[in-house]
């Protein structure tokens, strides 16, 4: 967060304005196909912000999955459903007013919470979690096993000062891969099963029933 901060700012604002503008066009465009294309543009802008946050792997995933696969899937579905002309009608003035009010209230509430929460004080919450866990389990879980070389990352207290972790600029893909094959390997395998089940379910649902 030290060097080339002005450039970071410029890239962030360009990406943020592009993402918000494209998202507004997604819900405002009259043509559903245009909505899908603007959705791809919005995903691309958000992927640029991921690069800015040093989440390069997530940016690649965003481009490959969202811009590549999801947008193509949406466009294929729109073409198969044949709702291109005038498909993006609003659901009536009542729903438009309700949606606008709900969206405004939600965004105001989230922005209020974001500004009024001390996000740097996460260690206090983690420490109180640790105390609760220790009280529940008889102070067993909060003691790392001696000689265990694996760092317990979740409850590792951030003893180092803030300036030793100077911000968002570092590589992250290697850590991500190590966590996925080491600590989160069970969740990783289960999520692949979920994807397989969803794939088979979609095939079964969308199959044309042959007249026999």
């Amino acid at each position, binding site marked *: 967060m030290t060097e080339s901060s002005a450039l970071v700012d410029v890239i962030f604002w360009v990406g943020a304005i592009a993402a918000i503008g494209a998202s507004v066009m997604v819900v405002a465009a009259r043509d559903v196909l245009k909505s899908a294309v603007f959705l791809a543009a919005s995903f691309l802008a958000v992927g640029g912000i991921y690069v800015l946050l040093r989440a390069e792997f997530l940016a690649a995933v965003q481009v490959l*999955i*969202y811009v590549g696969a999801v947008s193509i899937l949406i466009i294929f*579905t729109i073409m198969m459903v044949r709702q291109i002309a005038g498909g993006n009608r609003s659901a009536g003035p009542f729903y438009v007013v309700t949606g606008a009010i709900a969206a405004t209230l939600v965004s105001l509430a989230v922005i209020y919470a974001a500004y009024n929460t001390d996000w740097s004080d996460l260690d206090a919450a983690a420490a109180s979690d640790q105390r609760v866990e220790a009280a529940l389990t008889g102070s067993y879980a909060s003691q790392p096993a001696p000689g265990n070389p694996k760092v317990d990352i979740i409850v590792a207290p951030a003893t180092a000062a803030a300036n030793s972790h100077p911000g968002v600029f570092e590589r992250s893909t290697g850590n991500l891969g190590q*966590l996925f094959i080491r600590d989160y390997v069970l969740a990783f395998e289960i999520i692949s099963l979920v994807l397989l089940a*969803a794939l088979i379910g979609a095939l079964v649902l969308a199959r044309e029933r042959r007249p026999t």
Partner: protein
Amino acid sequence: MLELVHLQVLSAALFSIGLYGVLARRSAVLVLISIELMLNAVNVNLIGLGAFADRPAESRVFGQILAIFVITISAAELGLAFAIILKLFRSRGSVNTDELNLMKW
């Protein structure tokens, strides 16, 4: 100076645009597209919180791990939902949400 609050405001804006699309649009395809917008906003929030956390570098990627799970679940959900939409279109000839009242009576 890029701060966490900027990312959270961006995420809130994207989320509320998606919420408006879910509530106010008529076509089920548009409702699903808006749901994708909302999931994307959540990912922005997760990655931003992870990147700005005052933690060592190897703990900083927890937000990205959660975001990968969100992306995977959203891809699965989208595939299933579009299969359902295709089925609906074949059986009823319309995917407008106000005409999908089969369960009403």
